[in-house]
């Protein structure tokens, strides 16, 4: 009996503790939601006045032709936003004007004072003082922390989007914070705040399905400091962008060229592997195809860095591509017919138009490595090198490079890279290094 009782009691106790657990969970859930919405509500209420809609007004039609968001970073009237929000006005100040619309409906002119084109940031200034100033977070929040993106999605009015801070993305050279939450068009340039109401990033882009990106607040802090040290607005925005592009590519390629490039086998050839954090790679082959008359294996690598210059022109991308082909069932003439088609089909990795770029100019030569020339061994390759110059930003070029072996009748190895926004010196050094690493011997 007692045993039974005891057992009965203990069962009861266990049942009770489970009930308590469930209850706590049930209570805690709405409580947590309440806490979250409380802090979102508080953040919204406290910072509403400091978050603005940025509008680009077409002077001819008098209406807004683009909108974004921005926020007050200094009570002297300094406002942060994205470069891509104000780009049209930066390029054609005679045709566009920048305005802000506050939550209270106040409308006023803004003046572009500085940009950081690499991190897609811009500083605009109002004539009058603006409050409240949103404080910038000093420390990076831990991963998993709830954060709140604010802005004006689709011109619907100021909106709060809760999400999660997922740290600085490790796969791009220019740091971007991975924010799990939905950023929508029009929220660009708005702040993402932690629960203390401090800015942890600037809304910049989305990859869809809750994957969004923020510019780390450190980049904004740096731009504000540069602006304060200078003490006045930038006179020539185009020249400022040119300097930033030149300096950025110099820094990036110095680091890249100093790196010991890891390699990987592709067929009998050696190719460049992933270069962290610069490029990521994928691969494929036709080995699954039963109809294939030849073997083709490829590896494609691409950087995630894209510098926005205007709606039809971007820069900063690096691409590597490698092909290993074997004739298999094809005869040499057929194999080379396919090879020629592949060889003629390479294109740049970034987009641009005649307004911003000159036409590609190309050269091609038969090339052998020095050591091979001396020993009279090794591979003969056909190398194509094309460059196009930037019209607005001197000393910068887009490069398309292509190298393919031409001395084996049963197999070939093709390697290709494109660079966007690189100096002549760096492009040549890159070609030299690439040809030294990626080869078939």
């Amino acid at each position, binding site marked *: 009996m007692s045993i039974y009782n005891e057992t009965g009691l203990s069962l009861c106790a266990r049942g009770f503790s489970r009930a308590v657990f469930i209850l706590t969970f049930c209570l805690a859930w709405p409580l947590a939601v309440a806490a979250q919405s409380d802090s979102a509500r508080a953040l919204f209420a406290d910072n509403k006045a400091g978050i603005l809609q940025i509008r680009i007004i077409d002077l001819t039609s008098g209406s807004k032709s683009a909108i974004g968001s921005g926020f007050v970073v200094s009570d002297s009237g300094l406002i942060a936003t994205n470069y891509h929000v104000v780009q049209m006005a930066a390029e054609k100040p005679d045709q566009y004007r920048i305005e802000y619309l506050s939550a209270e409906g106040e409308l006023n002119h803004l003046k572009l004072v500085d940009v950081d084109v690499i991190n897609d940031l811009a500083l605009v200034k109002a004539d009058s003082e603006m409050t409240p100033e949103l404080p910038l977070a000093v420390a990076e929040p831990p991963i998993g922390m709830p954060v709140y993106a604010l802005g004006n999605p689709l011109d619907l009015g100021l909106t709060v989007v809760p999400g999660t801070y997922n740290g600085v993305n490790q796969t791009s050279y220019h740091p971007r914070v991975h924010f799990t939450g939905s950023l929508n068009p029009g929220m660009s340039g708005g702040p993402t705040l932690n629960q203390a109401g401090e800015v942890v990033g600037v809304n910049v882009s989305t990859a869809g399905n809750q994957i969004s990106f923020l510019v780390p607040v450190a980049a904004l802090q740096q731009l504000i400091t540069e602006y304060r040290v200078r003490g006045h607005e930038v006179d020539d925005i185009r020249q400022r962008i040119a300097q930033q592009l030149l300096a950025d590519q110099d820094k990036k390629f110095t680091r890249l060229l100093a790196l010991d490039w890891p390699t990987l086998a592709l067929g009998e050839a050696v190719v460049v592997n992933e270069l962290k954090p610069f490029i990521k790679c994928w691969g494929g082959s036709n080995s699954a195809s039963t*109809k294939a*008359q030849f073997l083709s294996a490829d590896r494609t690598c691409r950087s995630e860095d894209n510098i926005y210059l205007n709606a039809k022109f971007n820069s900063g991308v690096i691409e590597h591509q490698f092909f290993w082909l074997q004739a298999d069932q094809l005869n040499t003439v057929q194999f*080379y017919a396919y090879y*020629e088609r592949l060889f003629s089909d390479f294109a740049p990795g970034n987009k641009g138009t*005649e307004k911003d770029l000159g036409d590609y100019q190309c050269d091609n*030569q038969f090339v*052998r490595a020095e050591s091979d020339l001396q020993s009279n061994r090794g591979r003969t390759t056909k190398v194509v090198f094309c460059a196009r110059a930037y019209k607005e930003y001197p000393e910068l070029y887009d490069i398309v490079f292509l190298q393919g072996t031409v001395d084996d*009748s049963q197999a070939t190895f093709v390697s290709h890279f494109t660079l966007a926004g690189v100096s*002549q010196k760096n492009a040549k050094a890159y070609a030299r290094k690439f040809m030294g690493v990626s080869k078939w011997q």
Partner: protein
Amino acid sequence: MAVIVEVLGWGGRSQGHFRVDGPSVTIGRGYQNDVVLDDPYISANHLRLDATENGWQLTDLQSRNGVQVLKNSKTENSSSTVILEDGAEIKVGRRRLRILTDGHPVEPAKELHRLEQDLGRLNRLSIWLPLFLISLALDIGSLYASSFVEWQWKNHIFTILGSQAVVLMVALFWSLLGRFLRHERQFLSQYSLILSVGLIYTLLEWLIGVLSYNLSSSGVAMIMLPLLAMLLATLLLSANFALATNMLPRQRWISALGFVMLVIVVSISARMSEWGEFSPYPDYFADLQVPILQFSTAESTDDFIDSLDAVFAAADRKALD
């Protein structure tokens, strides 16, 4: 004095003639006439020509459709009688006739050009057949060589038949023209000519391709190929004319060259709109040849990279345009 009644065809060319001796000539569909013309619009006894001092007096024998004088140097005709002079042209039914004296002057004989004689010898099956087989084999061979998926005849048969049909049509066109203008078809000669020029072009095009590949220069092919095409097209056209028309050598060359020039002007103006257009894609020389056709020496990586400064300089110039 004999009367020559010449039956004219399209373009005023003679299709044949009747010679009638005697003071008068009757013309009609009936077999009792001196000149019998098989045309349903001509009456059985249509007209009569009587020799007079000034020419032939035309008498309409109450024909259904009458007689129309198309050309007659004698202008003064009384309303009732019509006098035809040497060289007059009349229309009877749907036939055009020229009335001539047997002393009517004819054009001096044209010199039979050596080229025409030589080309005429091409009109043999023993010449055409090998040429045809070679070009057919070349056609199929080049398709096979450029195919990198599994070869299936059904995928290529239309391409092969199509290109052969085009050559056949062109040969037929010239042959018909020859039949009309020179009364000789020379079909196999025309066919053989087109085939051999096609073969020569294919061979030279391939040679130029190998040359420009080894020189690493697309410019060589870009200049030489159109020049070659122009030259061969002019030669071919001139030979076609020689076989199919009565043109004198000078006329023939001028016509051939003129036609080729016209084609060039039209194709250039059609492409004019593309010139100087910006392209976001690089236009590089991507030609490749099989390894045994690569015989130029390679340069070192260092030399190649040093030579790239010229590319950057060219890109800078292009951006300033």
